[in-house]
């Protein structure tokens, strides 16, 4: 009975740059998915679920659970193997293009290379009242054991809080000569965060043109790869730490070290 079977590793013995999802065996491609279709429960609904699974590339797909919700909806859980390959070489990673600095290094860089303190303005714009995220970055208390930007001696931080309108923010940035404006957006329903960010970028462009401050946005549902698309300089996603942000500010705003 026992015999030896080819190992399922893909891409040979090499770097393994092509992978598939892993259930319990290399290369099995197994995934789980769940969704609701606006169809009453029954064989037609199950068929519809299988059709969707197939379009998602799951084949063979098993509808392992279905349950009616209300009058005309059915919830499904589907398991199966996706045929897609994941090409790791093609993965676009928003790599950090700057070194991660300690608070001391940030302060030193600002002090010696900028020769004045850096003015940072933070806010949560629109009707979004979630301040915990921006507070985590800015306030002394910080996040994940790291102190917030207020702790940095050479950063001059003002946190305007939440529900700040874009015109108010532009006004404040101008008044305080902000080097960087940090904006948080947590509510994402109907892409509110994307709309608000675009509005922010447009308003600053209009009001200040080339001399606008550095625009940084953050929030748990942002994709860091979207900065250019949104018209801002940098986007931070879930789990960002203050140190990452401070390091980026140095990278973006402090002149590079002159070659010795």
């Amino acid at each position: 009975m026992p015999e030896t079977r080819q190992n399922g590793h893909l891409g040979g013995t090499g770097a393994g740059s092509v992978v598939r999802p892993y259930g319990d065996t290399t290369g099995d491609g197994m995934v789980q998915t769940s969704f609701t279709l606006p169809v009453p429960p029954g064989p037609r609904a199950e068929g519809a679920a299988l059709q969707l699974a197939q379009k998602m590339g799951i084949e063979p797909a098993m509808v392992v659970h279905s349950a009616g919700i209300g009058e005309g909806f059915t919830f499904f859980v589907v398991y199966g193997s996706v045929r897609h390959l994941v090409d790791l070489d093609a993965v676009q990673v928003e790599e950090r293009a700057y070194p991660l600095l300690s608070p001391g290094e940030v302060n030193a860089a600002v002090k010696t290379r900028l020769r004045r303190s850096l003015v940072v303005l933070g806010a949560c714009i629109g009707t979004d009242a979630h301040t915990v995220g921006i507070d985590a970055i800015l306030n002394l208390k910080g996040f994940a054991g790291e102190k917030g930007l207020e702790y940095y001696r050479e950063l001059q931080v003002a946190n305007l809080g939440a529900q700040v309108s874009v015109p108010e923010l532009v006004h404040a940035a101008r008044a305080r000569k902000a080097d960087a404006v940090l904006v948080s957006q947590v509510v994402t329903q109907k892409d509110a965060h994307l709309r608000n960010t675009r509005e922010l970028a447009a308003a600053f462009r209009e009001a200040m043109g080339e001399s606008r401050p550095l625009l940084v946005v953050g929030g748990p549902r942002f994709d860091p790869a979207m900065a250019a698309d949104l018209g801002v300089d940098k986007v931070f996603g879930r789990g960002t730490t203050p140190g990452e942000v401070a390091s980026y500010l140095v990278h973006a705003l402090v002149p590079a070290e002159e070659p010795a």
Partner: protein
Amino acid sequence: MSRLQLDQALVARARELAARAAAPVVDLAATHTTISVERAQLRLAGLTGTDPVLGDGEVPWVNRVVDAVRDQVGLQHGVALPVWHALSSGGTLADLAEQVGAGTARFTVPEGAAADQAREAARTAVGAGIARIDANRARRDELVATHGDPPRRPWIYLIVATGDIHEDIPQAQAAARAGADVIAVIRSTGQSLLDYVPEGATRTGYAGTYATQENFRLMRAALDDVSAELGRYVRLTNYASGLCMPEIAVLAGLERLDMMLNDAMYGILFRDINPIRTFVDQRFSRMVHARAGIIINTGEDNYLTTADAVDEAHTVTVSQLLNERLAHEAGLADWQLGLGHAFEIDPGVPESFRLELAHALLARGLFPDAPLKWMPPTKHMTGDVFRGYLLDGFFNLAGALTGQGILLVGMMTEAVVTPWLSDRDLALRNVRYVLEAAGNLHEDFAPQPGGFIDRRAHTVLTEAVDLLERIADHPQGLIQAVADGTFGITKRAPDGGKGLDGVVRKAADHFDPATELLERIHA
């Protein structure tokens, strides 16, 4: 259900201190009015609709009229005197509003007999609104008698939040059919800061649906249908909060809503609304809720999203005592006090579940007759929806073990999206399993005197009394505590925040027919 043996002397002391700490707020509310309180008078008198000309046709007539009165004679006397005086020469409120729109209305403050006459007319007009609220309360009693109340405690409370009343309705009905006893339609992110109440059926909210009279009516009608279908009266909840808290309370009474989120401090802390504005508005809205037989839900749970649930547990207790005091003062009975608290301890903390039980039992012991509102984990939910589903199950269990009154159903997608149809369905299945399988486990639950749970509850109570001592000792009491960042580690100065310009110190002859009529009952 197992109760803790609380130190009754300490409990009495806590209530006494809460009364002292709240006194400056009671005082404020007695001596001020706000534009929203004044607009609420007109709403009770039946003024509806918007000025079709101004600002995209969104500005309600009540705003136009109150603003006009303010411009012409100020609000220190209240709107009722000038408005019903203006009406003494004939015409309806609606006609008067049209004149305001046309710029032809002229307001003066009547005196002597003219004032008496205006007051009487105002009482009649506003009384009609209150009569409608009374009729709704009677109708609710009738429907509850016909359809029946939920078969057990806690009541199962679910939110809908699509932003579109026409998506909300089928989702709410589906939730009721799947076992929800209470449906809350949460509000669009922007609404609290609007200084007017939108009108009509709306479909464009963000992360919530606008609270409008028409949306209230549509949803209540839909739930009446489903109540009849299910043979169980399904309650409807909305939010009497934000800059229009008094008006929303009135609309809730007029459209037979059954519960309202209504906290003395939520708007101050989480919406940066001016403290005085909020304290005045909440007094009025609570009187309306008292009359309407509406259960209020307070918002202590929110503190634990910004503050640590273990370190700051006592601030929840302090706030509950203050909310209780301010509610009693406004005429609410104990059965109407859905005091808030939440399952928000970091699940990674050792013994987190037992700490939750201690906190929940403390609230239960302090407020034995209040239908406590028990909120699910939110802060420590993550995108790991499986873990989230488990946590919600333990939250449900804690609710059953500690005799909570209103169980706000947690969603596995809490950290991801506003709830999907399927999230709600799964969440209700979770609740049903826990209550049916382990709902009576409280019979076997007997925290030992001096044991972990008992000790923790007493620690929190002692910390709460200590904090109350400090608050009560300050002449500004609660107002100062808010400025100090006591609740939700958020500091709010008495003269900061939005909406202060809508606050007016009452003149000696200020006349507020609604308050007068509402105070009559509990005086």
